[in-house]
């Protein structure tokens, strides 16, 4: 049986949390708390709350800094008391503004996408991320450029958080030659070698083995190629949804990642719905975090509408991976405010569920937190919002004024060897041989 407990739980009483964390010399970060939710749409009984009295396992006692676990507001049955407002905030001012700006960027960008779609500038499948920004920001802002991110079709905000410029993503969505993939990928296939964003995959579950492979490379480079890395192993994050957790590839990769102790974090964005299929209707055991310990890795459940809680868990999981301790499965309970895609009428989700999650909007919550803890003033936040608005406007103008891909681009990049058909015995590209035919496409 795994030495890791299934869920790492903070003590149920925040006052205890403050005392115990004050006792630690190495860190004093009490659990941040947002207004607790009155009701939960997530009705299954939850053993994590009953295990809240579990003490740390002996192995964890060796650690310099005990794991600061976070339990979801929804998961724990006990109402959490608001901690005293004089408690030290969990983030510095700079960090909080960075998080705020990133989430505002994601939200504004996605809203602009919806506008552009209805104006006909964007087409095909567009899947928007509104409401889930805390997960992307909470995780990706902790990464360095050398770390990798693999995502699904709901990948615009992952691209933005990882550092791909908004104008490049917008131009890609418009299908212009200045897009991050020169218009060849589209909404669902964002790639950026420079920022180590490895896609953008349309098939759910497809990104998980690819992410596992990127983590494998990180370990291979260290162990076989003997490349040194002062920061530890480069980490890969795989983002995917609740529906993916029933897919075979997910389980295959949980097994192999733990078997080979790969530096990967599996991040489940459980927004409770896979198009119109509710997670509860499709999954025999809806608690996804439990699938981690079944394979021998820790499984953590976190409130994905709270960026600070997500960041706390993410920090731990990423550090674990960097140290070579292997993978972690993190289930973030989150929600998408819009439909599955812009073509989805979104009729099956109940209005009161949507209303409940609207009150837990991660951006509103962070704003409240910043103001309550006097990390910044209202006007500073407004300045950030205005700056992002301008950036997105500029991105749209850039995308609008960019050229469409030239006709010759159709046949390019099928292969990495530049003209695609290999090198002949005389050392020259075969397609340059005048007798060589390239098929019949007349371009």
């Amino acid at each position: 049986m795994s030495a890791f407990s299934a869920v790492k739980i903070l003590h149920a009483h925040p006052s205890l949390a403050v005392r115990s964390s004050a006792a630690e010399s190495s860190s004093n970060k009490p659990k941040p708390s947002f207004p607790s939710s009155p009701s939960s749409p997530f009705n299954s009984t939850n053993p994590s709350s009953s295990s809240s009295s579990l003490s740390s396992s002996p192995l964890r006692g060796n650690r310099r800094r005990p794991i600061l676990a976070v339990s979801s507001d929804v998961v724990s049955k006990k109402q959490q008391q608001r901690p005293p407002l004089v408690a030290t905030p969990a983030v510095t001012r700079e960090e909080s503004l960075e998080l705020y700006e990133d989430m505002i960027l994601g939200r504004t960008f996605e809203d602009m996408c919806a506008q552009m779609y209805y104006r006909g500038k964007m087409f095909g499948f567009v899947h928007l991320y509104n409401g889930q920004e805390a997960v992307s920001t909470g995780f990706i802002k902790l990464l360095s450029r050398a770390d990798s991110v693999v995502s699904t079709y709901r990948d615009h905000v992952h691209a933005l958080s990882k550092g791909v410029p908004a104008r490049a993503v917008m131009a890609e969505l418009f299908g212009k030659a200045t897009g991050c993939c020169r218009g060849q990928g589209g909404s669902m296939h964002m790639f950026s070698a420079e920022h180590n964003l490895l896609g953008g995959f349309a098939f759910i579950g497809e990104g998980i083995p690819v992410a596992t492979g990127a983590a494998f490379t990180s370990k291979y480079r260290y162990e076989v190629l003997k490349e040194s890395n002062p920061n530890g192993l480069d980490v890969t994050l795989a983002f995917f949804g609740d529906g993916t957790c029933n897919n075979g590839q997910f389980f295959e990769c949980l097994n192999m990642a733990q078997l080979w102790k790969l530096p990967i974090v599996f991040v489940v964005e459980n927004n409770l719905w896979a198009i119109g299929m509710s997670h509860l209707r499709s999954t025999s055991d809806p608690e996804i975090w439990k699938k981690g310990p079944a394979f021998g890795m820790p499984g953590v459940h976190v409130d994905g509408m709270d960026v600070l809680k997500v960041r706390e868990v993410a920090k731990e999981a990423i550090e674990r991976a960097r140290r070579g301790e292997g993978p972690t499965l993190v289930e973030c309970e989150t929600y998408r405010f819009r439909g599955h895609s812009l073509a989805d009428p979104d009729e099956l989700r109940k209005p009161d569920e949507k209303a409940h999650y609207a009150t837990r909007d991660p951006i509103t919550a962070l704003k409240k937190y910043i103001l309550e803890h006097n990390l910044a003033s209202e006007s500073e936040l407004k300045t950030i919002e205005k700056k992002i608005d301008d950036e997105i406007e500029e991105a749209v103008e850039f995308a609008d004024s960019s050229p469409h891909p030239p006709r010759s681009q159709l046949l390019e990049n099928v292969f990495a060897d530049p003209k695609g058909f290999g090198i002949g015995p005389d050392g020259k590209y075969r397609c340059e041989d005048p007798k060589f035919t390239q098929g019949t496409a007349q371009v």
Partner: protein
Amino acid sequence: MLGAARRKILGQMLGRIRPIASIQSMSYSTAVKEMTVREALNSALDEEMSADPKVFLMGEEVGEYQGAYKITKDLLQKYGPDRVLDTPITEAGFAGIGVGAAYHGLRPVIEFMTFNFSMQAIDHIINSAAKSNYMSAGQLSVPIVFRGPNGAAAGVGAQHSQCYAAWYAHVPGLKVLSPYSAEDARGLLKAAIRDPDPVVFLENELLYGETFPVSAEALDSSFCLPIGKAKIERAGKDITITAFSKMVGYALQAAEILSKEGISAEVINLRSLRPLDRPTINASVRKTNRLITVEEGFPQHGVGAEICTSVVEESFEYLDAPVERISAADVPMPYAANLERMAVPQVDDIVRAAKRACYRSVPMAATA
């Protein structure tokens, strides 16, 4: 880099001894060096792994079992478990892991125990390996090789006998190779591993144990065959027979029988299914004016259909007879030995088809 540049044109007839090569050959003083296809593949993998530390093997039973068909024999002992990885039975998982590793510059060689099992991973071969360079506009290339036995073995039943050449050759973004002889196997596998693009390498289980002579150049560690170039195994002037993998052997036997009856057949070993060497095929048809294509896979939408179309598009006026394709029967592979024999092409079928194309009267082909 490519030893092919130094490769002299070998005699067209298989089995002709070249005395000069035998004097220079490495171990035997009197005979030309011979190698089984299995040894050829093993030596190719060995040399590529020692030349480039980024090359690694992944697959079921490639390590401690020494390879399900012993292709990867002794590689675990030589390179260690970090570079020769035994996987759990997770084709989709490890094919995807290979693609992810290739994104970051490693050069995986993924083995499928047979290509029938590649269907569990075909999403990754096509959607993440073949299409990635295109979707990312050249940012992420995938220097991966998927290899394994393809096609029918003996008596293994319907789910273990399918030929996937047409499936993979259909996809833009993949290179598909299928060797016949030991020299093909060595040269093409080395080329595949060095190639910056995804390569599907279709071997044949029944060829693994067959011995072929290899020239001294082929034994050199920098020997590579060009991708996209077919080989004329036997020159002729009356009819062109194209084939790949095991069917090349059958075509050569058929050519031998036909030559006794006065029909001189030119046998083309395709070697590369994508890109297909259309110039060589068309040049041959323009010379002989008749064509039959031989393949082991199902007939509809197969490799032969593509070759026929290519010839019709480019050399229509040169054809003196309709192009005929010899393929497996349009049924899943039966198990009974006599039915299995009828379900795959035999040398007889090739001979009869050649005679039909040459307008010799023959009894009607036996139909099931």
